[in-house]
């Protein structure tokens, strides 16, 4: 397999479902309808074309009913497209919504062997991998209970464990991360990293946008069965979440602005420590916000201020140079102002940065750039998911009188 050819090629695929008015596959109904079933056609996929390069982790996003699962099932050959072609290079395994195709009466063990043989493993190969599969799924002694008695999480864990231990070239996963507990999600995330490292291709359907952002190299956005956009997940997700493409880190347009115009903020940048502009950071990262300004009037005691809003609209932070006591007597004709943040303690999410320059009392705003920059934060250190900010705290667990037990810093 040459590395240049894509792992999955979806070429102008359309899929039509029949929506029966009266789901009645009986003789009487057939006779009364004059032999024909009455149904409406519904296009779940319409002319979708995309390529998944070998070794990438590819995300599929879209609202409920947009056709993500349908596309994945077409890739998995479970559904047959009505037109178009799908080519998958290499071996493939899939874990579709609500777990693998288990037989409820059979034990977990028997299902491992049954599913393994569906995925093309021989009995010997399965014997070799069996312990790893059970171990990864964390099922322990439950492996010999019929799967009908499993919890939904256990079901999915076993299915996922089988799907990855087949060591497929292409792995298709639909919404599994949603059901597992935090520990399992963490293990999955690590496993996805391993798979990527091993050069395997993963196609992932998920509503967990943070995971998509974190895991995927590329993503596709489906809307009403049509492909709306394909690209790097950062931009795509920003657009998906906000309904609007995020401004580049070097902003020329976008956001609203007002002010007297004696000084202008020409550019708002978010920079990594190495100086490259970005719109994505992780909790705990070190970042730099840089404002470029020019001034045409004489402005005394200029104050620069920033505002960070969460995408929900809540203001998270609003630092300014007045309170920081960094106010020159007169603003030079041009220059940059930087705010260095050693640890960005925002929890994962999408944020807007607004910037302004004015007088200390907010009466004479020279330039106000509302939502000049949109950026997103992904999981980092400390790993926290909810709330508005992380306090950067460090957990310690102790038993009474004993030494420190664990330090998760």
């Amino acid at each position, binding site marked *: 397999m040459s590395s240049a050819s894509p792992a999955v090629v979806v070429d102008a695929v359309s899929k039509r479902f029949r929506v029966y008015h009266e789901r009645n596959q*009986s003789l009487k109904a*057939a006779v009364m309808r004059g032999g024909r079933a009455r149904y409406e056609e519904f296009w779940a996929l319409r002319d979708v074309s995309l390529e998944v390069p070998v070794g990438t982790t590819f995300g599929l996003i879209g609202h409920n009913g947009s056709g993500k699962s349908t596309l994945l*099932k077409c890739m998995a*050959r479970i559904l047959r497209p009505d037109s178009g072609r799908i080519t998958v290079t290499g071996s493939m395994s899939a874990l579709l919504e609500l777990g*693998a*195709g288990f*037989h409820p009466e059979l034990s977990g063990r028997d299902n491992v062997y049954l599913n393994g*043989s*569906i995925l093309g493993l021989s009995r010997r190969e399965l014997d070799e991998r069996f312990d790893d599969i059970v171990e990864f799924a964390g099922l322990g002694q439950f492996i010999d209970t019929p799967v009908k008695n499993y919890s939904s999480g256990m079901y999915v864990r076993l299915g996922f464990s089988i799907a990855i231990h087949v060591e497929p070239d292409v792995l298709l996963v639909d919404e599994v991360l949603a059901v597992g507990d935090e520990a399992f999600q963490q293990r999955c995330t690590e496993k996805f990293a391993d798979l990527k490292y091993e050069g395997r291709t993963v196609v992932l359907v998920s509503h967990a946008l943070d995971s998509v952002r974190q895991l995927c190299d590329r993503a596709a956005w489906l809307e009403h069965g049509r492909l709306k956009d394909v690209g790097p997940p950062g931009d795509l997700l920003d657009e998906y979440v906000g309904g609007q493409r995020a401004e580049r880190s070097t902003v020329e347009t976008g956001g609203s602005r007002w002010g007297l115009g004696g000084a202008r903020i020409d550019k708002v940048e978010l920079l990594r420590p190495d100086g490259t502009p970005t719109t994505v950071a992780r909790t705990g990262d070190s970042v730099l916000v840089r404002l470029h300004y020019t001034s045409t009037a004489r402005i005394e005691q200029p104050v620069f201020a920033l505002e960070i809003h969460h995408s929900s609209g809540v203001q998270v932070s609003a630092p300014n140079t007045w309170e920081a006591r960094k106010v020159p007597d007169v603003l030079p004709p041009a220059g940059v102002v930087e705010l260095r943040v050693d640890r960005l303690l925002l929890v994962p999410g999408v944020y807007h940065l607004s910037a302004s320059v004015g007088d200390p009392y907010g009466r004479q705003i020279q330039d106000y750039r509302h939502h000049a920059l949109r950026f997103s934060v992904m999981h980092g250190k400390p790993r926290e998911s909810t709330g508005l900010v992380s306090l950067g705290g460090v957990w310690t667990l102790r038993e009474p009188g004993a030494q420190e037990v664990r330090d998760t810093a």
Partner: protein
Amino acid sequence: MSARGALAEISASKELLANLTLRELRGKYKRTALGWGWSLLNPLALMATYSLVFSVLLRIEPPPGKDGLTSYPLFLLCALLPWTFVSNTMTGAMESLLQNANLIKKTYFRREILVVATVLSFLVSFGTEMAVLALAFLIVGSMVVPWLPGVALLMALLTLFASGLALLLAVVNVYFRDARYLVGIALQLWFYASPILYPIAYVNENLPGWAASLYEANPMVGFVESFRDLLYVQQAPPLATVGYLVVVSAGVFALGAWCFSRLEGRLAEEL
């Protein structure tokens, strides 16, 4: 799909086919005290009932077999066992896709395998029963062994025939759920329209010529008579009959496989 892909798919399927067949077999008598014993007890009970009714009460005379052997139970079993195989396969196959809806909706494999696994699991029972029947012939002193290879070939042909019907009915039943009830009735009629309980001579004696030839178009007539020829009378069945069976079986199989491949595309969404 590339030839290599197809080959890989087939070789991967062997393991799956074995697995599914074993599952069917294990599942069939699971949690029963007698287990596999039922597989033999069932035809024995049928044989006892039919023998009582048709041989003792209604006094049907079986034609003489090899060396003047006349035994209604043996005469009956030569036909009843193949018939049970065909009828079980048909009813079983109709459930096979429905029962495995979960697998079909979540995983990809050649869907035919499910049907073939059902056929194979019944073939295992059929084989066991036929072995016991051969033993019974030996016990009554009839040297049946030289005819057994022929019986095996005929069983293979019957399996081809049954597989074709199984493929057809399995997939039709998904789209048209009344099929199983229609088939239930059809099997009743077919059973009596085949010379299982009675000798074929009765048909020729009591029906006009055109009706008798119509009767013989039923492939089960040929199968049943050929099994009887080989085991009970111990003579080669007429070449014309065998030829007819080969053609019909191949045709039915081709039809079943064609319908299956035509209709399997939308299985996952119809189940």
